């Protein structure tokens, strides 16, 4: 239909003539991936540490070498006693001190199980926790490698294997969240702004007086954003796999389908926002409060939903991004197929239908 084609063309003209829109659509995804993938990484490399080795034994030496060999730590101070440790914490700004006791070598051979003390700078709690986690896994690996086969092992031993993200790369956690955020911005915020702009400039009224049915007007406006969002999701997934080495264990085509479904949900959110606001400013504000805050903070993107207070958890359930991120993570990291994420698909589809119904009802009411 020529009217629809004319609409799509016109909408692309709007997009390509507005530098702000272009910037949001094409530069923001890269910026977000870079910010979350590289800059705001919770992984810590070359943390400055001090070693207090009171034993001077072979085993202790081997352990220290192993720690030094990992790129997580950089030993800046090597001591015999812990007497002036506090001074070193202050003057050299070390984050962690590892204390190896005098009888480390002996205990390693004969038991009781060797004992190591860690002293961490807890003024930055997240850093301290991460460092302790890192050092623990190094020490554990060392103990396993070096225990003589005959030696009496502790009565039981916990071995942990990190499934799906064995290296515990947090960028894998962020990519689905970024994808959700970008699709929200391009599909929901940009469409709500462009729809409201038609209202603000009176063109909506003029178009309503033409024979063009209003669904065509809306569809015509949405197609460009749908296409751009689809391209954007491919782009982000491409960046994730090529730059950060994130795997796609599931079927990439199925993954793309889920992205398309989420784009539809976001578009209907955009339509909904445009039906309750009258100015572009109000639409931007509504998008900020209604979309970005929940998508960033309540979707499990940054803060795990399990850690939220009980009253907040139900609210997280109505955030579309929560369901999308869940589905995407399962498909990319666990290799889940569409059957495995049916719940998420149904929820997103249901939200889309609900939002569209409410928006249509509202616009009908306004018309009279």
């Amino acid at each position: 239909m020529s009217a629809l084609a004319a609409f799509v063309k016109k909408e692309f003209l709007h997009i390509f003539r507005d530098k702000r829109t272009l910037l949001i659509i094409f530069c923001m995804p890269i910026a977000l991936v870079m910010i979350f993938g590289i800059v705001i990484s919770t992984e810590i490399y070359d943390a400055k540490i001090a070693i207090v080795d009171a034993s001077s034994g072979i085993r202790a030496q081997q352990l220290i070498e192993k720690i030094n060999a990992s790129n997580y730590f950089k030993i800046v101070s090597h001591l015999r006693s812990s007497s002036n440790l506090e001074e070193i914490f202050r003057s050299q700004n070390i984050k962690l001190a590892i204390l190896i006791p005098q009888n480390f070598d002996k205990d390693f051979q004969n038991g009781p199980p060797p004992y190591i003390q860690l002293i961490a700078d807890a003024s930055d709690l997240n850093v301290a926790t991460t460092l302790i986690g890192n050092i623990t896994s190094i020490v554990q690996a060392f103990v396993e490698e070096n225990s003589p086969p005959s030696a009496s092992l502790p009565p039981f031993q916990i071995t942990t294997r990190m499934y799906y993200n064995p290296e515990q790369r947090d960028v894998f956690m962020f990519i689905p969240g970024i994808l959700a955020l970008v699709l929200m911005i391009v599909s929901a915020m940009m469409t709500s702004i462009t729809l409201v702009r038609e209202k603000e400039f009176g063109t909506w009224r003029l178009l309503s007086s033409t024979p063009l049915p209003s669904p065509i007007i809306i569809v015509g406006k949405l197609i460009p954003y749908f296409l751009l969002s689809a391209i954007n999701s491919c782009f982000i997934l491409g960046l994730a796999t090529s730059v950060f080495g994130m795997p796609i264990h599931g079927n990439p085509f199925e993954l793309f389908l889920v992205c398309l479904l989420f784009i539809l949900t976001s578009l209907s959110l955009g339509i909904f926002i445009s039906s309750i606001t009258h100015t572009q400013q109000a639409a931007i504000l509504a998008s900020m409060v209604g979309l970005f805050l929940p998508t960033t903070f309540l979707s499990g993107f940054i803060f795990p939903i399990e850690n939220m207070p009980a009253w907040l958890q139900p609210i997280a359930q109505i955030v579309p991004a929560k369901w999308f991120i869940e589905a995407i993570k399962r498909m990319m990291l666990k290799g889940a197929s569409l059957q495995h994420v049916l719940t998420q698909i149904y929820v997103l589809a249901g939200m889309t239908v609900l939002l569209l119904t409410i928006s249509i009802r509202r616009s009908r009411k306004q018309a009279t």
Partner: protein
Amino acid sequence: MVQIENLNRYFGAVHALNNVHLHVQKNQLFGLIGPDGSGKSTLFDILATLRLPSSGKAIVHGFDVQKKASQIRKIIGFMPGQFSLYQDLSVLENIRFFANVYGVAFDESFPLIRDIWQQIAPFKHRLAGKLSGGMKQKLALCCALVHKPSILLLDEPTTGVDPVSRKEFWEMLQTLKSQNITTLVSTPYMDEANLCECIALIQNGKILAINSPAAITAQFKFNLFGVQSTRSNMLIKQLRQFEKTQHCFAFGKTLHLMLKDFSMTERDIVEFLEKHGHKNVAVWRMKPGIEDCFIELMQS
């Protein structure tokens, strides 16, 4: 072409259109004259099927606005009061877009828009937002005519436009008459009333009068005089105290004095003013204009 009977429209407690009756004949240039907030735009919205009446009937080209909105939309060309084209699209892109919306091809040569197109063609690649006020209105008219409508609805097309562009715009409307188009146009400028074949004066949602401009001025009920004096600011207050005065208003430096009593002559007025110490008073009988009629009808 347009029949409106007993039309009412409320917005909450506001009675925006109050029992409006109105008939527009085929190929007529019909003017709806009234100030801001008189209900002109609401009436246009109803005819353009953007709003529903609260009660009453409105028929456009035989189609009822409440039941046959989609048929009406095909045959009307609407130009809303607010400039409603895409400011970030060029002149040509706007026209092509609206041609596509109506499913027609833009044909620069067809007689209806040839004249208008010639005037805006030099700026066809300019963005609509960068045009002057008069040019914007011509472009909007062009877009409203692109599908050869049989009824043209123009809501205040000349508001805020300078007098020369206004004149040019009205000249264009005159030529449309010969092209088989019925035009319903609203304006707050009373001086534009004389350019219409038939006018309706509207105030507070009520039609004050409908007729040709000549017939409306012929129905003027008062004895009208023009008065001038050298001390004009005292003059108006004193004339309002004259017992026979119905209304007195300044039209520039001339005061229009409306008297109920047709037996009064220039002499009576001069005598009254001279008693109040005015010298060099000029008083003469006047033919009423549309503004005089509007003031008279507003008061009754």
